[in-house]
Each structure stands twice: as structure tokens, then as C-alpha cells.
């Protein structure tokens, strides 16, 4: 999932201040799971904005809507009537969702209400961790399913640095050493020999460092 957190309310207030009618548009998938932009967060933000604007004696009409996914045209369609009724859309989706809305509604103001953070998982209730950097060339098979590209602070691909101590990374005692985890996993799987494979310097052309990427599935293009 894509994780993110809602922007500070005062930043959001500044974004919506110029408009009298605002649609707060939630996304019911990733950002809902990380409590940044599902219908509950839309409702709380709408209420907080109303209270805030009432204190300033400013009038603002806020409409609330949460669609299944803002990154897919099929679901975006549902927001059309609400968008037509408002002057601006405050999207609580990730950056992909915000941009999908902006592409689909080229003449509408679409504002971001969430800071998109990373591709990750909910490790335990309320705790989200980054697991994948979308490097475009996945090597998890060799690393026992633990990604050093993302989870090793130095992105080391051929074993730990000298700073790994008691299973934690030297950059932060709250960060597990990815290489400690890789070795533990490979031991469990009986695949420690994987460590003998030399991993050459990574070709970052397939990652964002190679410029914006595009995925093409010819068989789905009509």
C-alpha cells in the first residue's frame, strides 16, 4: 500500500481559504488503511475546518465524499457531480490519486491534503513501515524476502556494514538491521548459500533515478 499522513490542519486551511465551496474527497483504499484519507478522516477534517472557519467568521461549504480509489478512472467518475458543485477539490489520496483527479478534471482546482510517504505495510496497529522503493528490478528472492534496497540505510547489497549491532542499524536503534533480518530469514529457509552470490552494483535506470517511468501492457491497449 501507499502510506501517507494528513497535512497539518493549518496548511490545509491556507490551501482551502480562497474557496467558498470545497469537496473533501477521500480515497477508500491505501490512505484509508493508514488513517490519512478514508471516510473517517474526511469527516474529521471537514468538522475541524468548519469549526476553524466559523471562528474566523468565514463561510465555507464543505461537501464530503470518499470513493474507492482516486487512481482509477472507473471510480473517479462517481465524484463528478460533487466536483461540479464545488470550486475546489481537497484530495486526501496519495500523490497519484491527486494527479489522477487533476488529469481527469483538467479545469478543476485539485489540492493535496496528504503528504504521501512510502510504499509499506501496517506492521502492527498504528505502525507503518517502508518496505519497497519501487526500484523496478526486484531481487527479494535472493535476499530471503527482505529488501536491502529499502530497509538498509546504506542500500548495501552484499552483506552488512560494520555498524550492525545486536540486530539494529547504527543509524537508529529503532531500525532493525536489514542484513540481520536477511541472514535470519536465509538461515530459516536453509538458503544461506545465497550470500555467496556476488550482487553487482545496482542499475538504477529502472528506478525513479532513471526519470519518470511508464508501464506498458500492450495486450491491454486497444
Amino acid at each position, binding site marked *: 500500500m501507499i502510506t501517507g499522513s494528513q497535512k497539518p490542519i493549518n496548511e490545509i486551511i491556507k490551501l482551502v481559504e480562497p474557496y467558498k465551496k470545497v469537496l473533501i474527497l477521500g480515497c477508500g483504499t491505501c490512505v484509508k488503511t493508514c488513517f490519512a484519507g478514508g471516510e473517517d478522516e474526511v469527516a474529521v477534517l471537514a*468538522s475541524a475546518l468548519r469549526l476553524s472557519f466559523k471562528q474566523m467568521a468565514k463561510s465555507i461549504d464543505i461537501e464530503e465524499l470518499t470513493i474507492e480509489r482516486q487512481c482509477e478512472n472507473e471510480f473517479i467518475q462517481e465524484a463528478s457531480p460533487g466536483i461540479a458543485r464545488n470550486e475546489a477539490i481537497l484530495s486526501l489520496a496519495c500523490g497519484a490519486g491527486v494527479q489522477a483527479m487533476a488529469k481527469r478534471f483538467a479545469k478543476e482546482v485539485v489540492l493535496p491534503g496528504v503528504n504521501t510517504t512510502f510504499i509499506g505495510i501496517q506492521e502492527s496497529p498504528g505502525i507503518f513501515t517502508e518496505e519497497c522503493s519501487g526500484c523496478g528490478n526486484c531481487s527479494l528472492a535472493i535476499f530471503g524476502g527482505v529488501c536491502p534496497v529499502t530497509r538498509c540505510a546504506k542500500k548495501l547489497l552484499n552483506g552488512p556494514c560494520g555498524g550492525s549491532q545486536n540486530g539494529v542499524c547504527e543509524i537508529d536503534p529503532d531500525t532493525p538491521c536489514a542484513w540481520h533480518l536477511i541472514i535470519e530469514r536465509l538461515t530459516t529457509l536453509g538458503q544461506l548459500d545465497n550470500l555467496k552470490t556476488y550482487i553487482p552494483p545496482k542499475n538504477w535506470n529502472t528506478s525513479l533515478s532513471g526519470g519518470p517511468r511508464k508501464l506498458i501492457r500492450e495486450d491491454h491497449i486497444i
Partner: protein
Amino acid sequence: MEIHNTPKLTLFHCINSFEETPSMFDNCQVKTVKMACASMTKDIHLLRAFEAGSDAVLVLVCPDKGCRYAQGSIRAKKRVDYVKTILDDIGMDGRRLSIFNTTAKDSRAITDIIQKTLVALETIGPNPALNHLN
């Protein structure tokens, strides 16, 4: 502009933490909201109580270890703390929202909480969004 002299309170409570007794609500208007468990305390309900004109919102829940669903009171406290930060951020003063561990039988403690809330409101002031509520 509405004249709003008698403080308005909304009191959310779980079934084990509150029972109304005579004179408990002297000098204020109180709307009570009964919850099956403190874990039903939701951020949006607390905020909507302020939108509805409450000057202060109280949440009464069981003592931490007394919650029959184990963690209801702890969850309620975390949600209250979260809404307090929102209130602070929007200039409404988080102190107008509070949570207490009470038992229904202890009406003296509950009356005391309400009266102390009224005293605190003299410093905090009325709901600042009230005069502009639609």
C-alpha cells in the same frame, strides 16, 4: 449574535461510568451520550459536539483495568488526546475536552468533575465557534 450564558456541556460516557443524580448538572446545560463501551469514543463525535455548540466536552470511562472490553478506556484516552491536538491546532483550546475515569456509583466525583469543568471554562471561555454557528 447569540447570548450564551449557561455553559453547554456534552458528556459522553460508557454504561459503567456514569449515572445522573439530582443537582449534578447545576449551572449548566448538559447533553449526555451513552456508549456501550468507551472504545466507541470517536474523534468525529467529539468534534461534532463542539459543532453543535458545546463549550466543553467530557468523556467519562471506566478505570483502565475496569473496562469489560479490556482496552476501551485506553483507546478512548488516545482518541481524546488526538482531538485535543486538533482543537489546539485550530485555536479552540484542547482543554475544553477532557476524559476521566469514573464509576457510576461515585456521583460525588462526577459532580466535582462537572463543577471543575465549569470553573475551567471561566478561563478558557465559551466555544469560540459558537457565535458563528449556522
